[in-house]
C-alpha cells in the first residue's frame, strides 16, 4: 500500500511544478486515487472483519471472558462454551501436517529445481499447480474414501504395535482423528510448499552455484550448503503460507477429524478444530450465546493466525539477516 501511494508523486522532477488540473487530465492523480482506494480497501476489510467478530461476540465475551480460552467444555444444551479443545485440535493437526509436508515438500522442490531436467521439472510443476487448485472438499472425499480406511486397517494398527509405548499412539483405531486430519492437510499443503520453494530455488543466482562447484564441492554440497541457505527466507515463507492454509482449512478437516471436542495426547483420538466446528455448527445453532460463542471462536482463529503470521515475519527477518550474512560473507 505504502509503495503504491509514494511512487506516483515522485515520478519525476516535473511533477511538483505541474498544475493539479493538468495532472488530472493526464490521469496521474486519478490513477493514484483509484489505486490508493483499492489498496486501502484491504485494510478496511481487515478492520471491518475484526469489528464484526468483536461486536458479534459481545455477549459471549462478557459471559466467559478469558476463561473461554481455558475452558474445555462445549455444551450447547447447558450453555457452556470453551475453546480449548478446538484450539488444541487446530494446532495439533497443523503441526502434524507441517511435520509431514515440510520435509517432503522441500525435498521435492530441491529435486525439481536443482536435479531434474528442465522439461521434467516444468511438467511436474504443471501437475503441482493443478493439485494446489483442487477444492478442499475433494481432498475431504479422498480422506474419507481412501485415507481413513487405510489408516484404520493398516497405518494405525502398525503404529500401535511398534510405537504404542508412546502416548502419541494409543486408544482404538477409528481411522478418523488428529493424525488422519493432519495427513489430509499435509497432502493439501505440499503443493504450496513445492511450488513456492521451487521458484525461490530457481531464482538463486547462477554464480552462487558455480562458485561452490569451482571450489570443488559436489553437486549436492553446492545445493545443500549454498543454494538452500541462500533461499532460506523464501522457503520459510512458503512454509508459513502452507501453515496459514492448514490453520483455516475447514471442509477437508471436518470430514476426517471425527468432530469430537476432546483433548487427548493420542493422535489416534478423534478431535475437532476451530474452523471445523464453526462450519458444522453455525448453520443450525439456536440461542444467542451459542451463536455468539461460535463467532468468538472465529475471533480466536483470527488472532491465532495473526500471531503465527507475526512470528513468521520475525523469523523471516531474523533468518534473512543470517542468510544474507552467509551468502555474502
Amino acid at each position: 500500500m505504502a509503495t503504491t501511494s509514494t511512487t506516483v508523486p515522485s515520478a519525476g522532477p516535473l511533477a511538483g511544478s505541474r498544475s493539479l488540473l493538468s495532472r488530472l487530465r493526464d490521469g496521474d492523480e486519478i490513477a493514484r486515487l483509484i489505486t490508493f482506494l483499492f489498496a486501502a480497501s484491504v485494510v478496511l476489510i481487515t478492520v471491518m472483519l475484526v469489528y464484526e467478530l468483536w461486536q458479534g461476540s459481545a455477549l459471549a465475551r462478557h459471559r466467559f471472558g478469558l476463561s473461554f480460552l481455558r475452558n474445555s467444555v462445549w455444551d450447547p444444551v447447558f450453555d457452556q462454551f470453551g475453546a480449548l479443545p478446538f484450539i488444541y485440535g487446530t494446532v495439533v493437526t497443523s503441526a502434524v501436517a507441517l511435520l509431514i509436508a515440510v520435509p517432503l515438500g522441500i525435498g521435492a522442490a530441491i529435486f525439481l529445481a536443482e536435479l531434474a531436467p528442465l522439461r521434467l521439472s516444468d511438467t511436474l510443476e504443471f501437475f503441482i499447480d493443478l493439485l494446489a487448485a483442487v477444492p478442499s472438499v475433494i481432498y475431504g472425499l479422498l480422506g474419507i474414501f481412501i485415507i481413513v480406511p487405510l489408516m484404520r486397517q493398516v497405518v494405525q494398527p502398525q503404529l500401535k504395535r511398534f510405537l504404542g509405548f508412546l502416548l502419541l499412539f494409543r486408544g482404538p483405531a477409528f481411522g478418523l482423528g488428529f493424525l488422519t486430519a493432519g495427513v489430509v492437510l499435509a497432502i493439501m499443503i505440499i503443493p504450496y510448499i513445492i511450488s513456492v520453494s521451487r521458484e525461490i530455488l530457481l531464482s538463486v543466482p547462477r554464480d552462487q552455484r558455480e562458485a561452490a562447484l569451482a571450489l570443488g564441492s559436489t553437486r549436492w554440497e553446492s545445493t545443500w550448503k549454498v543454494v538452500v541457505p541462500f533461499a532460506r527466507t523464501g522457503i520459510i515463507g512458503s512454509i508459513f503460507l502452507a501453515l496459514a492454509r492448514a490453520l483455516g482449512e475447514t471442509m477437508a478437516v471436518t470430514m476426517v477429524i471425527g468432530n469430537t471436542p476432546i483433548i487427548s495426547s493420542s493422535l489416534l483420538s478423534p478431535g475437532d478444530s476451530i474452523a471445523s466446528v464453526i462450519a458444522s455448527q453455525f448453520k443450525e445453532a439456536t440461542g444467542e450465546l451459542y451463536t455468539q460463542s461460535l463467532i468468538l471462536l472465529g475471533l480466536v482463529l483470527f488472532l491465532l493466525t495473526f500471531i503465527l503470521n507475526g512470528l513468521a515475519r520475525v523469523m523471516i527477518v531474523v533468518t534473512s539477516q543470517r542468510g544474507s550474512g552467509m551468502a555474502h560473507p
Partner: protein
Amino acid sequence: MKRIVGIVLVGLGLASFLLARATLSITGAGATFPYPMYSKWFDEYHKKNPSLEINYQSIGSGGGIKQITEGTVDFGASDGPMTDEQLKTYQDKHGFGILHFPTVLGAVVPTYNIPGVTASLNFTPEALAGIYLGKVTKWNDPLITSVNPGVNLPADDIIVVHRAESSGTTYVWTDFLSKVSEEWKTKVGKSTAVKWPVGLGGQGNEGVTGTVKNTPDAIGYVELIYAESNKIPYGNVKNAAGVFVKASLAGVTAAAAGAAKAMPDDFRVSITNAPGKDAYPISSFTWLLIPSKISDSAKRDAIKGFVSWMLADGQNYAEALSYARLPKEVVAKEKQALTNIQ
C-alpha cells in the same frame, strides 16, 4: 440499428418489470430436512397459481427461527418447535405471536454395522440410551442380547457415531433419549447439538452413514428417508406400548395419531415415545412458523391459501418423497388454527 436494439431492450425491461410486479413473491427460510418436500409443494402450487411464487432457503432450523424473528422472511420452518423463550422474544419484538403449523412427519432410525450380523436388530430405549451414554460398551451386553435371541453378537466395543453439526435429526434423537432416560435428560439433554458423552461425529446423514459403513461395530442414527433411499439396514425400536417396531411411514403417522388426541392448540408437541402399539417411537413433526399477524393482505391470503392447499392436496405428494402424511385429526385442527392468522 443501435437504436432498435435500445428500444427493444427498454421494452423488455419494462415488460419484465410489469410481469415481476404482477407476481407476488413470498420468501421463507429454515429446516433442511423437509426441503425436498417443500420445494415440490412450492413448485406444484406455483403451477396452479402462476401469480404466486414462494422462495424457500433451506438454511437450517436455527436459521429459520432467527430469520423469522428478525422479520427478514415471511415465514420460517423448523424441525424443532420454538422454545417459550424464543416465542417471548418474538412477541416482545413484534407485538404479536408466531404460530406453528405441522406439515409432514419424519423418523430417525438406528443403523449399525456388525460383521457377521445380518438380522434386523431389536433395540430397547434403555439399550440406546446406555450405548449413547457410554455405559453399554459391548455388543454382547445383556441389554442388547436379551431382546435379540438367536443373534450371535460379538464381544466387541461399540463405536458410537453421531451427527457432528447441529441438526433437526439430532434434536429428534436426543428428544427421544431424554424421554426414555432420566440420566440422559439431566446429563445431556435435548437440542440440535449436544455435548456427546461418547463417540465420533459424522458430517450430515451421509457422514454418519459413511462412518458406520466403514467402521466395524459402529452404530449411528439417520433419517428414515435417508436410510430408505440408500438401502441402509436399520433396527427396530421398542415403543411405549412395549412392541418392537420397524420404522415405516405408517408407523410414523400412527405415532402422530396417538399424540393427536393430546395435541396442544399451538401444535408444539413432541411425538417421540408416543402411545399406541403401531407407533414408531422416534418420530417428529416438522413445522412452518407463520406470524399471527400479516399486515400485507395479499401476502396473508397467499400464505393461508398455500397452507390450506398443503393440508389437503399437498399431503398426497408426501409418500412419494418418503415423508409421512399428517393424521386426519391434526389436519382438521390446523385448518381451524389457520383462521387465527390476521
